C-alpha cells in the first residue's frame, strides 16, 4: 500500500472504532461519568471536607487528577479489549485479515480508537469536576502528554488481552483483578507519604502510581515521585507493549488457526 492508502485504511479503522463507542454511548460514555460524579460527591465533598488538605491542597482538588486518570485508564483498556474481542467473536476481524492492511495499521486503529474513548471520558469527567472544584493547569503540555501516553498504553494492553482471550470472561479478569486494585492503590485518593515505609516501597512498584502522579503534577504541580522518570517509564512501557502486540498479531496469535 502506498502512503495515501495506508492513511485511508488507518483513518477507516479509527472512524470505525469511534463510531462503535459513540453508537453505544449510554454504555460507554454515560456510566463512567455517573460513577465519577459519585466519587466527587462522596469522597470529595462529604468525606473530603473532613479529610482536610493534602500537600496543601483541598482533598477535592487532590483527587480530581487521579479520578480523571482512572477513567482514562479503565475506558481505554476496556474499549479495545471489548471491541477487538467482539470482532473476534463475530469473526469480523476476518474483514481486516483478508485486506492488504499491514498489522500495524490494524493495531494502530484499535489503539487510537481506544485512546479516543479514554480521552473522551477523561474530558467528560474533567468537565464534571468543574461543578465541584476549580483548578488550572500548571504544566499543560506535560498534562496532555501524560494523559495521551497513558491512554495509548492501556489501549495496547487491552488489545493484548483481547488477542489472548477465548471467551468474554477473559476480557474482564484483568480489569477486575489487576487494573482496579492497581488504580485504587496508585495514589488516586491519597499521597503515598501517608503510608508506612514498607508499604511505600511496595507502592513504588505500581506503574499506575507514576502515571497518576505525573498527571497530578501537570495539573496541580505536586507529585510523590520524580516526573521525568515517570514519563520515561510510560514511554518504555508503550514501546514494549506495542512490540509485543504487533509480534503476536504477526504470528496470528488468537486469530489464525
Amino acid at each position, binding site marked *: *500500500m*502506498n502512503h*495515501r*492508502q*495506508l492513511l*485511508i*485504511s488507518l*483513518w*477507516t*479503522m479509527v*472512524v*470505525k472504532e469511534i*463510531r*462503535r463507542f459513540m*453508537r453505544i454511548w449510554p454504555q460507554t460514555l454515560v456510566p463512567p461519568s455517573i460513577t465519577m460524579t459519585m466519587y466527587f460527591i462522596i469522597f470529595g465533598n462529604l468525606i473530603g471536607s473532613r479529610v482536610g488538605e493534602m500537600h496543601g491542597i483541598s482533598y477535592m482538588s487532590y483527587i480530581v487528577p487521579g479520578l480523571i486518570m482512572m477513567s482514562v485508564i479503565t475506558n481505554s483498556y476496556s474499549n479495545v479489549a471489548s471491541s477487538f474481542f*467482539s*470482532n473476534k467473536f*463475530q*469473526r*469480523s476481524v*476476518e*474483514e*481486516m*485479515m*483478508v*485486506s*492488504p*492492511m*499491514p498489522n500495524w495499521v490494524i493495531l494502530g486503529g484499535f489503539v487510537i480508537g481506544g485512546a479516543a474513548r479514554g480521552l473522551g471520558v477523561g474530558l467528560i469527567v474533567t468537565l464534571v469536576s468543574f461543578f465541584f472544584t476549580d483548578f488550572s493547569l500548571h504544566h499543560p503540555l506535560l498534562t496532555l502528554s501524560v494523559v495521551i501516553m497513558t491512554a495509548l498504553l492501556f489501549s495496547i494492553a487491552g488489545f493484548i488481552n483481547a488477542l489472548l482471550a477465548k471467551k468474554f470472561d477473559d476480557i474482564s479478569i484483568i480489569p477486575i483483578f489487576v487494573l482496579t486494585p492497581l488504580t485504587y492503590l496508585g495514589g488516586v485518593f491519597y499521597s503515598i507519604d501517608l503510608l508506612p515505609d514498607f508499604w511505600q516501597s511496595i507502592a513504588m512498584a505500581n506503574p499506575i502510581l507514576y502515571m497518576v502522579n505525573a498527571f497530578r503534577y501537570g495539573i496541580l504541580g505536586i507529585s510523590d515521585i520524580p516526573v521525568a522518570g515517570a514519563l520515561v517509564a510510560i514511554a518504555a512501557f508503550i514501546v514494549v507493549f506495542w512490540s509485543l502486540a504487533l509480534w503476536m498479531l504477526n504470528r*496470528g496469535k488468537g486469530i*489464525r*488457526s
Partner: protein
Amino acid sequence: MTPHFNQSIHKDTLMAEPALSIRGLTKVYGNGFEALKGVDLDVEQGDFFALLGPNGAGKSTTLGIVCSLVQKTAGQVKIFGIDIDKDFAKAKYHLGVVPQEFNFSQFEKVEDIILTQAGYYGMSMKEAKPRSDRLLKDLGLWDKRGGAARMLSGGMKRRLMIARALIHRPKLLILDEPTAGVDIELRRSMWEYMRRINREEGTSIILTTHYLEEAESLCRNIAIINRGEIVKNTSMRELLTELDTEAFLLDLEAPIETLPALDGFELERVDAQQLALSVRKGTSLNDAFEQLSAQGIKVLSMRNRSNRLEELFVNMTSEPDTASDIDSATSTSAKETAS
C-alpha cells in the same frame, strides 16, 4: 473517465499466470490433524471453478490459507503469480472473499460495512461511494443500506458479503458456500449475478458448494478434494462424460400395480404412477418407450432423476473400506452378543 482502483495493480499482472496456483500445500493443525496433504491446484484466469468435497475434506482450510485466515504448514500459493510468502499484501488486492459464515458486525449499518471494507483497501470515499451504491442496487440491498446488518434476512446477509467482497474490484472471487440456506428464487438470481461478473468483468471465481446442481450449472472446471487430497481435477464436461449411466423419472398416465419387465433396461417402481429408468450410455430410449407402450403403459413426461454430478461425487468421496468395516464391526458385535 476516472481510473478504477486496482487498475494500476492489474497492470503488472502477468496474463499467462493462473489466477491461483497452489503447489504442495500442507496443513497440520496443532492437535496433529493433517487437514491438507500436499494439494496441487491451478485455477486459470477468467475461470468459474468448483472446489467440492465432503465436510472436513479440506476445502475451507485451502481457501483459508489463500485468504490468510489459516497459516499453512508447507507449500506455495501464488495469486496471479504473486507468491503470498513474498508479497501477501499485493496478492490480497486481487482477492475478494465471501466466507461460509457471516463475518461482519451485526450492529453496523449495511452501507458502512461495505464502505469500511473499501477503506481497508485504501479506497477513497470519493471512489468507494459510487461503487458501493452500484453494488447495493445490483444486489437488491439499496433499500436496506441505512439499517443495521442484523435486521437483514439470511439471503440478504449473503448478498451483503458478496457486495463487500466486490467493493475493491477483485480479479479473483472466492465464494465459500454462498447460497447456503438461500431460497431457490434468490439462489438463481445470485447465480445469474455471478455468471455476469464472470462473463462481463472477467472475474475468476472459485466456488465451494454442497449444491452440486449449482456447481454443474455454473462451473467450467472442477476439483474434488477428499481427506486433504485432490482426487479429481478436470473440466466439468470431461467429468460428466465419465458417467456411463443416466437415470430418468417417468410419469405415467395411469397407475400400475406391478413393475413391468424391460429387456436391456433397469426399471424401478417409485410409486404407482412413477418409474425410474436407468439407461446405459449409447442405448436408445426409443426401445424403452416401445416396450412400455407394448405393455399398455403410457408415459406423460420424463426428467432426470438426480443430479449427475452428485453420483460422481459420492463415488469419488465415499470411503472404500466402509463396507468391509461395517461387515467386520457387525460380525464382531454379533460374536460379543453370542458369547
